[in-house]
């Protein structure tokens, strides 16, 4: 009985760690490669890909530095426990005017894919489905704004 209890305790400790370790690590500096779709990006520069992404990943969050979420690069945090991160920033709106805009992010794993959600009150939305394979980062990006929806596949290579 004692052995079974110890085994269960060990499994309780080891399995989650093993599962966590099985998730891909997106950390690093990534350089945009390939060409952008013709109809990209959406209105007000929303969804335009950053030439460079600096990704930091911990067991609890992913931070994307220099992410191009609009006309201005930003550093954005995505918590991996499914909870929201909310902040305010002076940002471009659909009309082109700058205003205080509320931002919100969320993330979740779907197998080896990491899905990042970004919204703001200037009516912009972005869903990035990130995968990494053979040293390449692929982002399936969908955006919404009052104008047309966009879908694009963005490819990044490891840079420095």
């Amino acid at each position, binding site marked *: 009985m004692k052995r079974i209890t110890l085994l269960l305790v060990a499994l309780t400790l080891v399995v989650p760690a093993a599962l966590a370790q099985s998730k891909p690590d997106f950390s690093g500096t990534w350089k945009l490669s390939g060409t952008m779709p013709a109809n990209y990006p959406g209105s007000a520069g929303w969804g335009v890909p950053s030439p460079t992404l600096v990704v930091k990943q911990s067991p609890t969050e992913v931070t994307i530095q220099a992410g191009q979420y609009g006309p201005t690069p930003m550093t954005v945090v995505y918590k991996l426990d499914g909870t929201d991160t909310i902040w305010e920033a002076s940002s471009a*709106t*659909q*009309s082109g*005017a700058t*205003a*205080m*805009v*509320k931002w*919100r992010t969320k993330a979740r794993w779907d197998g080896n894919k990491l899905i990042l*959600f970004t*919204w703001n*009150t*200037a*009516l912009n*939305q972005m*869903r990035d489905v990130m995968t990494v394979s053979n040293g390449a980062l692929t982002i399936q990006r*969908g955006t*919404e704004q*009052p104008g047309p*929806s966009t879908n694009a596949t963005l490819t990044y290579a490891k840079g420095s």
Partner: protein
Amino acid sequence: MRSRTPSLTAWIIVIFGFVAFSPRASLQQRIGPSAGKGGVGDITGEYEIPDPNWPQWAHPYPKPGYIWGSQGGVFAESPNRIYLANRGELKLPDKVPPNFPGNWGFFNQMAATQPIANMVNCIVVVDGNGKLIEAWNQWDKLFEWGRGPHQVYISPYDPERHVWVVDDMRHVIYRFTHDGKQLVQTMGVLDEFGENDDLTRFRRPTMIDWLPDGTFFVADGYGNTRVVKFDKTGKALLKWGSRGTGPGQFNTPHGIAVGGSPPRVFVSDRGNRRIQVFDTDGKFLEEWPGIAPHSMLMSADEHVWAVDSLTDRIVKFDLSGHVEFSFGQFGTRPGYTWAPHQITADSDGNLYLSEVFGGRTQKYHPKPNADPTKLVWGRSLMPLANARTN
């Protein structure tokens, strides 16, 4: 030569008649002199010029310094119970011109959700005089991260008269109890859009209409390019449509109306500037080109009324696609419209139009001796099961 002239004239008449009266003729061709009724220059049709102070509750302002922004939807349950779907309030300039009429369209800035709309008083209910009956402020938070309610409806066939609200930007459809106290169903996944094959998620849905058995159809929408058919519980049964310009393909299916015998599904394919007609399993039947409706309404007399985004005209079609009457014109003065986005009518013959760019909802009262065939008649609703009348 003399013998050929009558023949040529006859051919011209035949060709002109075909073009003018065929369902394939464009709207501009069909609302010309041949329609003989309404037509270009008829601003309000068989209706009086609306009172610019209706609804009273929103005039002069919902609260000091703020004004209603984009008006996505309006639904008249009865002459004394009208639901208004407001896509947020906007801050007025510090100095407002003395001739300011009270609606956002006056400022000529188009999108009445910008720069940032405050999502308050998103669903309100007013009486026939426009006095506030209910403000569903408990649900304002639902709209905070989007652009507010897109449209609002009650199924004509629901004895409980649930209130349905489409939120395109957050990709969901809500069903509330009649009094607004409970949210009983959310369709779609909040804040997550899905692609055309995904039956659990929408991508900016736009409009709903029902069959008598409770089956309903959703136009989906700005992002996707399809119609989804649901049973009365909300279980997805099938979908049809893809992006394109061919039969059964869409570019912004934005309006939908269901009716006729056998029933048909009329879809406003707004981006392709046409209405497409399907059977209830999605089989393409025909198209009516030359009109790009924001919204459509199946009337009690089984006609499709469409509000055209190209011309700001309100157009009455028979179910074969022939134009019987039209009126309306772009503008911001009373009676004119700027992007009429939902059309509804009550049992007294009053017409209501919500305007997304004009930033107002107008109530049109029939003229004395109005021709009833030129008025919009909403479908009567099932009697409310647990009687509440106003």
